[in-house]
């Protein structure tokens, strides 16, 4: 599953101002509403579900990456977005590091395979230090999108 299969280009945010976990998640979900990928009426329940999932265990997977996510019945196809935080957000990651690269995923309730493949793709690409570094340095959503496309085209060996 390539980034371009599930990341919403219009929802990408660089230079996040929010620096607390909940505020960051809210900002990312808002960007999906603005990109018309989720309904504003579903916003609150989606955010609640994501936060509830975080309570079970941080989605900070190490190396400054987090993958907050949830399933939601209003969604019929996996959708995601990327946000870059320059200063970092405390996500209570297992490795204790702040998070700079966030991938928010919302999936339909009955397709665990898509979610798993998205996680697989995210983790494979982000194992590459160069890719991580370039992402973190991105100042504009277009730059992020270009990097994602390059990753999809195997420009970053992993």
């Amino acid at each position, binding site marked *: 599953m390539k980034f371009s299969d599930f990341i919403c280009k219009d929802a990408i945010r660089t230079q996040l101002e929010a620096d607390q976990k909940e505020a960051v998640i809210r900002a990312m979900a808002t960007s999906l509403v603005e990109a018309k990928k989720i309904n504003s009426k579903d916003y609150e329940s989606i955010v609640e579900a994501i936060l509830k*999932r975080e309570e*079970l*265990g*941080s*989605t900070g*997977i*190490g*190396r400054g*990456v987090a*993958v907050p*996510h949830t*399933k939601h019945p209003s969604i019929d196809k996996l959708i995601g977005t990327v946000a870059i935080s320059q200063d970092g957000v405390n996500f209570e990651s*297992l490795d204790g590091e702040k998070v700079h690269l966030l991938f928010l995923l919302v999936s339909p*309730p009955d397709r*665990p*395979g898509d*979610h*798993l*493949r998205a*996680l*697989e793709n*995210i*983790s*494979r690409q*982000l*194992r590459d230090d160069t890719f991580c570094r370039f992402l973190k340095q991105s100042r504009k959503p277009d730059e992020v999108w270009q990097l994602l496309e390059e990753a999809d085209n195997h420009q970053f060996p*992993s």
Partner: protein
Amino acid sequence: MQTFRITRVIVIQNSQGLHARPADMFARLAKQFQSRIELVRDTQRVEASSIMDLLTLGAAKGTSLVLEAEGPDAQEAVDALVRLVESGFPNDEAEVEEQASQGDER
């Protein structure tokens, strides 16, 4: 100190596969042991104590993986990790929800 090398085949049991929550549980458990622990899928070899590494396997239900541990507590490590996998990662709430919804259909 004696070093042991233990290898076991494990099969992912839970319907949601090895996603973030089970990967987190697996990594935390692996970290508790001294031994070097790796998971192998075909030609992919990853560190069991890294959530990100585990996620790169994209291991769905039914996937066979080879668990390898090397060190003084390799046997304990393998036993514990096998137990976790074969029990289907209890406390994986996505799994619990899935089973509950299947129960509703009956």
